[in-house]
């Protein structure tokens, strides 16, 4: 397959999110998000969930809406429970490598940082995966830094193939690829990709991505579309809140991006992660950190705007906040995570991407979820692969 200039196979799509992004009236929306009055909040909250406009979404990010956060949270919870039930999908990150050629000012893997670099062999990756399987996980997110050679498509194919017979659901959070390259990863057994744009604000993006392939804003922005066209069934997106001083700008962009993907790539299931800047070796400190209350408001607004989007909370956030957010609108979460390659079987040997804040064990998180009336869902494979058939062992089912 041949790629054209922006990485699509064959004819480029007539409309991409790049077109749409250019038409979003950010200036006006950010003003709404900062200065909306109570009557605008009333109007946004009176709408049926799922029928809000992007303006309404921006209004729900405002301080005026923040005064009605409890009301928003109640509505968000009701919609979430109706759509997803009292269940929580569980996944675990597995870092394959912290090698990186990009220099991103906020990241613990950035090229110039003096951390211990490590790339797992296939055998080491299998050991890490066995560790996670033994803890119950069936959905694993493989992560790497951005290093074309050390962790290129062939490397990823090998590692995905090695896990495909044992892990029902494999997702990737790695550098972005062309449509043809994504198709190879789909064929290897990967079903989903997560691509954070980090910030949708082009100038901020250029400022924090100092060097390396990740500097290419548009290439990254269209990554989810290329992945969807290649057959990836699950797309995860998100902004790293705190990179751009106006977090509401990125919040609006994430909401618009999600709505675009749902409409144009309707076969893929879309989820949104809500990461905030965490301490790392990079010592980046946000000019304007996002508060717990603002993060919660963001979750509620996303849920009311997009009732059926998956919302993901990782162990970046502290236990108490995560526990609160689980009841408000989160549908997918990790637990007991390590953010360095080899970190499950051999912790503390290599540099980590960021410090985790929720240090509870898997068991503790699961017990908490059960305690608040949620059933953790581990097994939810989407594609009936040969691997799934091979996993079918022993006559354990009732005849």
């Amino acid at each position, binding site marked *: 397959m041949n790629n054209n200039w922006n990485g699509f196979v064959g004819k480029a799509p007539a409309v991409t999110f790049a077109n749409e992004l250019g038409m979003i009236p950010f200036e006006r929306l950010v003003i709404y998000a900062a200065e909306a009055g109570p009557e605008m909040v009333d109007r946004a909250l009176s709408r049926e969930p799922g029928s809000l406009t992007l303006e309404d979404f921006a209004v729900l990010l405002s301080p005026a809406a923040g005064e009605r956060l409890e009301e928003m949270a109640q509505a968000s919870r009701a919609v979430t429970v109706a759509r997803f*039930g*009292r269940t929580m999908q569980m996944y675990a990150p597995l870092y394959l490598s912290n090698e990186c050629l990009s220099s991103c000012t906020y990241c613990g893997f950035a090229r110039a940082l003096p951390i211990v670099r490590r790339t797992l062999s296939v055998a080491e990756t299998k050991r890490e995966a066995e560790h996670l399987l033994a803890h119950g996980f069936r959905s694993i997110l493989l992560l790497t830094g951005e290093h074309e050679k050390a962790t290129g498509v062939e490397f990823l194919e090998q590692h995905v193939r090695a896990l495909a017979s044992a892990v029902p659901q494999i997702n990737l959070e790695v550098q972005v690829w062309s449509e043809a390259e994504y198709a190879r990863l789909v064929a290897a057994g990967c079903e989903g990709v997560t691509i954070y744009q980090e910030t949708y604000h082009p100038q901020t993006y250029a400022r924090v991505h100092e060097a390396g392939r990740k500097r290419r804003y548009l290439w990254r922005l269209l990554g989810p579309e290329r992945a969807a066209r290649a057959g990836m069934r699950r797309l995860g997106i998100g902004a790293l809140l705190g990179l751009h001083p106006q977090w509401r700008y990125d919040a609006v962009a994430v909401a618009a991006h999600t709505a675009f993907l749902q409409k144009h790539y309707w076969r893929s299931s879309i989820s949104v992660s809500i990461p905030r800047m965490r301490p790392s070796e990079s010592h980046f400190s946000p000019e304007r950190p996002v508060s717990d209350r603002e993060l919660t408001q963001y979750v509620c607004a996303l849920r009311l705007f997009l009732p059926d989007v998956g919302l993901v909370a990782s162990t970046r956030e502290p236990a108490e906040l995560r526990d609160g957010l689980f009841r408000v609108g989160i549908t997918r979460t990790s637990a007991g995570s390590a953010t360095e390659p080899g970190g499950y079987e051999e912790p503390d040997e290599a540099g980590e991407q960021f410090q985790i804040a929720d240090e509870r064990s898997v068991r503790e998180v699961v017990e908490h979820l059960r305690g608040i009336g949620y059933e953790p869902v581990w097994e*939810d494979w989407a594609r*009936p692969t040969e691997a799934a058939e091979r996993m079918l062992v022993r006559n354990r089912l009732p005849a």
Partner: protein
Amino acid sequence: MDDPLKIADREFGSRLLVGTGKFGSHETMRDALFASGTEIVTVALRRVDLEATGGPDILEFVDAQRYLLLPNTSGAVDAEEAVRIAKLARSAGMPDWVKLEVTPDPRYLLPDPVETLSAAESLVDAGFTVLPYMGADPILAKRLEEVGCATVMPLGSWIGSNKGLRTRDALGIIIEQATVPVVVDAGLGAPSHAAEALEMGADAVLVNTAIAVAGDPVSMAGAFKKAVEAGREAFQAKLGPQRGEADASSPLTGFLDR
């Protein structure tokens, strides 16, 4: 049993089928199934821990002696995958009955009519008893019947919406024309919706979300049981005709008799 629901070669005392998704715990699900009086329980094969190495598995909470376990193909996006899942369930020792779901769209989980018909045909050929989830399209219902499906399962509204019988008029045609049982599946949000479906002549209903996400799922399951029984009884008792307006108290043509 009086007035059994007959599907293929089996008879069932209950006209309420129940799904197993979205419950807050397996224990609540088990108790709700019991309270519903159901005899047919559908389980997503993708939620079953085939390897049986993890924690408690959903199947441990569904008594295979009490219920017909109806594996469903949820997660399948085309005919090929649906057929594969059904065969996987059968080789796992589950019954060769299958609730066919082919839903390429992850948001509304609407059934793909083209792929559903194609999968139904293959599965009937492979010896399965096929219960297909479908849009409320009367012609599609006839086509599914013709390829040998044991029921048709048109949606009342989309899965999980709890909106009730938004497709009522089309359901009326499907019920009128059907030669296999019509099971209204999806969108029933309240016992009154289930009663309404049975009153209009549907043979059965399938309910999941409305029970699973209720404040008290076990009580709600009991409420659906009663509603389904009441709806069926009302259908058999034959409802009185509906009238748009009251009759004029004095006949308009009375003057002719004077």
